[in-house]
């Protein structure tokens, strides 16, 4: 089912009653969640993710704006009439009921001609238990199960009524690292298998990137960017989104576009041209994988001083200092293990930049500043062109 939010705003009275200003948890949110997709709402703590989800579920009513399910206005519809299933961070499994009874709970609420017999209920429970693979555990109490199993029970309970929408609020944050990865793949599988439109809330960008069709990046109640994970990663709309996505995070340095070149501190790092051809000061964002070890004859390089090398198996991270970086932040470059070995644990290092992995942002409003790479794409050509420029 297609979900649309149109100019949705949610204000809360401040929890501290002495402050009369409202807390704007969600501000003018307009998004479209396509039928059958898995969409993640991603953002740091307190940015309004849960509120956005609660607005979709109907647990909270918007202060302004409208919500549509398949074109039908559901803004004033109570949660139980919206046909949704929800999984909470704490799972909210009833501790005194068995798994079977927990999953059956929503079915027992059905009234009138929708009312089911015990046998029908049992059949439905067993069906959904099979989908989430907990059919062995139906007679346990929640306490007698692992976090991951409890998680599945919660999903089963949310799915048992065959809702049109599945909402998950940070469903993995109570699991350990390994189980998180396993369970998120499980959620993806269940979503694909059932084809149910799913909204997934998380503050973990890796989680969101790995399982979503679309991610919605939020900060302080405002949607900063919406798009396919790879697109958002490859083309962040602003500095916040660029910083929020990717591990290790993007390197951000102060820089300047001057005379057709991008400078970072004293280093001339890239030949570029801005749309307006003007010179300006910018923030330069460089993805760690966009820093490539430079050869001796490279003209455009970023110089650094190696602090350490972090071994992560296949790839290694070079942690380095750059004079244009603020105190306490380091330059991080992901390189292959063999390249890392050639650098050594200390001393100087120089990188050339992959222009596709470099983003420029306005110094004031931190929005993206588009640039055109004026060097040649081909390595060899690049050399000759640079020489040409030098002349």
């Amino acid at each position, binding site marked *: 089912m297609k979900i649309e939010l149109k100019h949705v705003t949610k204000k809360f009275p401040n929890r501290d009653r002495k402050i009369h200003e409202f807390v704007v948890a969600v501000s003018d949110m307009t998004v479209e969640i396509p039928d059958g997709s898995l969409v993640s709402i991603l953002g740091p703590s307190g940015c309004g993710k849960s509120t956005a989800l609660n607005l979709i579920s109907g647990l909270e009513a918007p202060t302004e704006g409208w919500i549509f399910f398949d074109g039908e206005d559901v803004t004033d519809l109570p949660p139980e009439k919206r046909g949704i299933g929800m999984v909470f961070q704490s799972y909210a499994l009833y*501790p005194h009921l068995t798994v079977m009874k927990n999953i059956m709970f929503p079915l027992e*609420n059905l009234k009138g001609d929708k009312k089911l017999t015990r046998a029908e209920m049992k059949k439905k429970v067993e069906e959904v238990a099979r989908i989430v693979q907990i059919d062995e555990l139906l007679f346990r109490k929640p306490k007698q199960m692992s976090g991951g199993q409890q998680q599945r029970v919660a999903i089963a309970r949310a799915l048992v009524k065959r809702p049109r929408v599945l909402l998950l609020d940070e469903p993995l944050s109570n699991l350990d690292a390994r189980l998180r990865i396993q369970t998120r793949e499980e959620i993806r599988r269940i979503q694909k298998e059932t084809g149910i439109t799913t909204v997934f809330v998380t503050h973990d960008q890796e989680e969101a990137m790995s399982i979503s069709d679309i991610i919605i990046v939020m900060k302080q109640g405002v949607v900063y960017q919406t798009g396919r994970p790879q697109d958002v990663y490859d083309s962040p709309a602003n500095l916040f989104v660029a910083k929020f996505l990717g591990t290790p995070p993007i390197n951000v340095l102060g820089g300047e576009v001057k005379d057709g070149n991008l400078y970072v501190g004293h280093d001339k790092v890239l030949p570029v041209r801005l749309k307006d051809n003007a010179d300006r000061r910018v923030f330069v964002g460089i993805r760690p994988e966009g820093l490539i070890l430079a050869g001796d004859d490279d003209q455009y390089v970023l110089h650094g001083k190696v602090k350490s090398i972090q071994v992560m198996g296949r790839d290694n991270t070079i942690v380095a200092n750059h004079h244009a970086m603020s105190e306490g932040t380091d330059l991080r470059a992901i390189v292959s293990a063999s390249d890392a070995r050639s650098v050594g644990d200390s001393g100087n290092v120089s990188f050339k930049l992959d222009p596709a992995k470099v983003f420029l942002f306005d110094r004031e409003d931190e929005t993206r500043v588009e640039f055109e790479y004026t060097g040649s794409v081909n390595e060899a050509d690049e050399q000759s062109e640079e020489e040409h420029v030098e002349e």
Partner: protein
Amino acid sequence: MLKNNNKAWLYLLPAIVFLGVFMVYPLFDVLIYSFEEGYNFTSQTYHGIGFYNYSYVLRDPYFLQAVKNTFILVIITVPLSTGIALLIALALNSIKRLKDLFHTVFFLPYVTNTLAVGLVFMIMFKKTPYSDGFINVLIKAFGGNAVDFIDGPYWAKMFVMCLYTIWIVMPFKILILTSALASVDDTYYKAAKIDGTGRLRMFTKITLPMISPMLFYLVITGFIGAFKAYSDEVAIFGTDLNSAGMNTIVGYVYDMLYGNSGGYPSYASAAALILFVIVFTITVINLMISRKAVVETR
């Protein structure tokens, strides 16, 4: 390991000594007293060992009256006070803004002296040659006949007694239950709401099981407390409870020791042990039921 153990005992020592001197020793003493026949208070002698004290107490009409009073009090006040407290706590829990204020208001009787509250009750219910008392004025206003609740018929006195007991235990129960209700995680209700659970079902299937440990705690302590009632009776009916017909078991024990007809520690001990057996039995039954009914919420 052993050293650790010794240390633990050392820490426990003050508590053990204290409990030993003031709880365990008196308990044994009472047990011994209750079997000493013909004990003389002044000479501290007795002529035999046996069950005479028990048979005397069990045949004493004052004791039987006290047992009857106590049981009526227990059976009426424990369920009523717990039930009403739960209703009030539920109401309080739904009006979040007023919660703090109500907490104080309902807690007032708890921090107020029993005798002071008893005095107020007496003034409200008593009928004197000069005034009918507040409650009787109300009864008359609605066309009823004045009743003397303090010196009048048994049911009237019992009514005041139960009302007073409920009133006095209510604040504590409300306090416990409001915090029990508040401690139920809100997401259970959210989940239930999304699943279309009705209000009644939410209460019986979620709220009640979740607060059942506290509920049973209140019932058990309520039973024990009501069985030990005494000072409340004195506050309303004065010290001569036997002639008022409003004595309780603990009151009987006290009277046997220090009352006008007192000076019989053996009878008092026998009565006290009978009370002990009653309370113990009821508590064991309570615990057995609660083990079945109370759900593990964690």
